[in-house]
């Protein structure tokens, strides 16, 4: 029976891209690496307790003093375990990857909400992105951008973008019909409709998407240690390869602490935005 040479096609395609656009990829890699290095160095200069203080303040604003205390304790544990530098690396990667995901994802979500056709085209692509095992993204990332930060960010962005696209789309579509009718009846332009009615009302749902995207970013950033991403994931990977359970646990616990802080912080922001949009 004829065997579909799908794997071969993909390999050939990637090779073609590399042959023709290799320089572009290299330049891109270099500039992104520069940016992340700059961030990392800059953040490295900030004393650890200042960073803890900033997080505590954010937590207090978002949810109250309990979360502020929890955040302080959690971050202090990471500092105490002497994992501060890998923690910062992971944090930077998560923030960059999330930011890129949001910058691409939210506009895509808006487009999907406004065009049924685009929505239909995008849906299977998102299904693909979300269900393809995350490791598979590591290979092309590696080939395009070499070992290191940029590959990690690339793989992470692809893996973590779908929720924010889907939930932006959903949030806008869920805006009650009579409220969009108000916009139309008073003669709003389509951008006025978007900015004055749809986005404000979709904000809680979009925020939930941002939360999901951040959580997925974190998990992928840890996994992308396999392609040379620095940070907590690298420590976990080292723990596994050296059969050092204690080390793996210390790094793993730090990931958990970071995950909980990011999750609770963004949940707090979601709750605040829900409260702002009062039920009429």
């Amino acid at each position, binding site marked *: 029976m004829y065997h579909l040479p799908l794997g071969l096609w993909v390999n050939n395609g990637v090779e073609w891209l590399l042959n023709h656009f290799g320089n572009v990829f290299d330049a891109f890699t270099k500039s992104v690496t520069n940016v992340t290095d700059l961030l990392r160095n800059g953040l490295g200069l900030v004393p650890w307790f200042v960073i803890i203080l900033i997080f505590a303040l954010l937590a207090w604003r978002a949810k109250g003093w309990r979360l502020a205390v929890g955040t302080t304790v959690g971050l202090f544990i990471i500092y105490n375990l002497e994992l501060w530098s890998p923690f910062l690396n992971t944090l930077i990667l998560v923030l960059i990857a999330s930011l890129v995901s949001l910058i691409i994802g939210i506009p895509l979500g808006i487009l999907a909400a406004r065009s049924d056709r685009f929505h239909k085209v995008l849906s299977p692509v998102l299904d693909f992105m979300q269900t393809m095992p995350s490791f598979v993204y590591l290979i092309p990332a590696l080939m395009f951008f070499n070992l290191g930060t940029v590959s990690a960010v690339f793989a992470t962005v692809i893996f973590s973008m779908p929720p924010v696209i889907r939930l932006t789309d959903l949030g806008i579509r869920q805006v*009650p019909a009579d*409220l969009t009718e108000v916009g*139309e009846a008073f003669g*709003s332009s389509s951008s006025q409709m978007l900015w*004055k009615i749809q986005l404000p009302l979709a904000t809680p749902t979009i925020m939930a998407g941002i939360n999901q995207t951040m959580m997925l970013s974190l998990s992928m950033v840890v996994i992308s240690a396999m392609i040379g991403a620095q940070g907590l994931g690298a420590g976990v990977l080292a723990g596994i390869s050296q059969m050092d359970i204690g080390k793996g646990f210390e790094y793993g616990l730090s990931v958990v602490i970071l995950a909980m802080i990011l999750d609770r912080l963004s949940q707090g922001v979601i709750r605040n935005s829900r409260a702002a949009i009062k039920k009429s």
Partner: protein
Amino acid sequence: MEVKIEVKNLVKIFSSQPQKALHLLDKGLSKEQILTETGLTVGVNDVSFTVNEGEVFVVMGLSGSGKSTILRCLNRLIEPSSGSVIIDSVDITKLKPQELRHVRQKKLAMVFQQFALLPHRTVLQNTVYGLEIQGISKEEREKRAMESLEMVGLSGWEHSYPDELSGGMKQRVGLARALTNDPDILLMDEAFSALDPLIREEMQDELLNLQQKMNKTIVFITHDLNEAIKIGDRIAFIRDGSLIQVGTPEEIIGHPADDYVAKFARGVDRRKILTLKDVMKRPHPVVQLKDGPNVALQLMKEHGISSVFVVDRARHLQGLITADLALEARQAGIENLQGIDLVSVPVHNGAVLVQDILPVIAESKFPLAVIDEGQRLIGIIIRGSVLAALANTGGEPKDVSSTLRIVG
């Protein structure tokens, strides 16, 4: 009276490809036949009417009758499948999106059934919305918004959020939001249907008050004929997407076009439409001032009544004489009624609603007198005939009109 809105042969078929159904409609097929043949629903079927400037035009029909669709065709929230909507001699259906937006901003404002206030905005921010999207300065639009909030009695609430308001107040905001734009035309989609009955009546009264000052052209959708009669100058009756009858409330009640309308007319709360003119009896008998007590007593005896109205030659009401008074006068040897202290009775204008003086009717020992502008006695109200008119629940359309004696 100038025509403000003219709707000509409006058809709405719910489909992105209505041509086939339109074609069948032209051939004269019914809504049902088109549904079975094409699977398409005819929402509005060849509706034409005109709305005059300054008129409150009510479109009345049950849910699913297509009345809201008709309203939405006026500002093209729903695109008509065919036909035209002409506002100030401009065919709305032919406008480009940009021109349509302009018309919506300047000429048409809408009030929604479920209020449709933006929950993330305060009352004031909701009220300025229409001006905000026109790019009018914050100072100017807030000034105008505050004026319309004051008009609907919501001063002091401008910084509250919609969820802090009661239903009636929310709809006042909805009304203020529409008025802030200073549109020529108000489109009101079952604007009061979601309110409690008491609040609803209050809002109806308020709308009528406001309308006296503003003199807008209002197209009002409702499923409640009592509401239609109360606020409508004219009423259009819609069933299954077709226009059945257009007319003043009197015409609708007095001469229903078919059984369907007649059935509605029977459900009307008669107190709200019956005036004294409708229930009064011919003033017969009456005595004149030149007559004496004997004439009065004779008439009372003849008609089996205990009192009779007294008028002068020009039928101006002078008062009422009871049998006791007449007897006294006869014993005193008085020749004519001029010399007698007649019982003075309250007089009422014929246009007064029966419901407004029901308590008076119930309390009064004597019949009430109805007079015209020239103070002439034109009728009398006796309790029995009022009750009969109120209790009348119908019969055939013809009976309705004759019983109510409404001049069509």
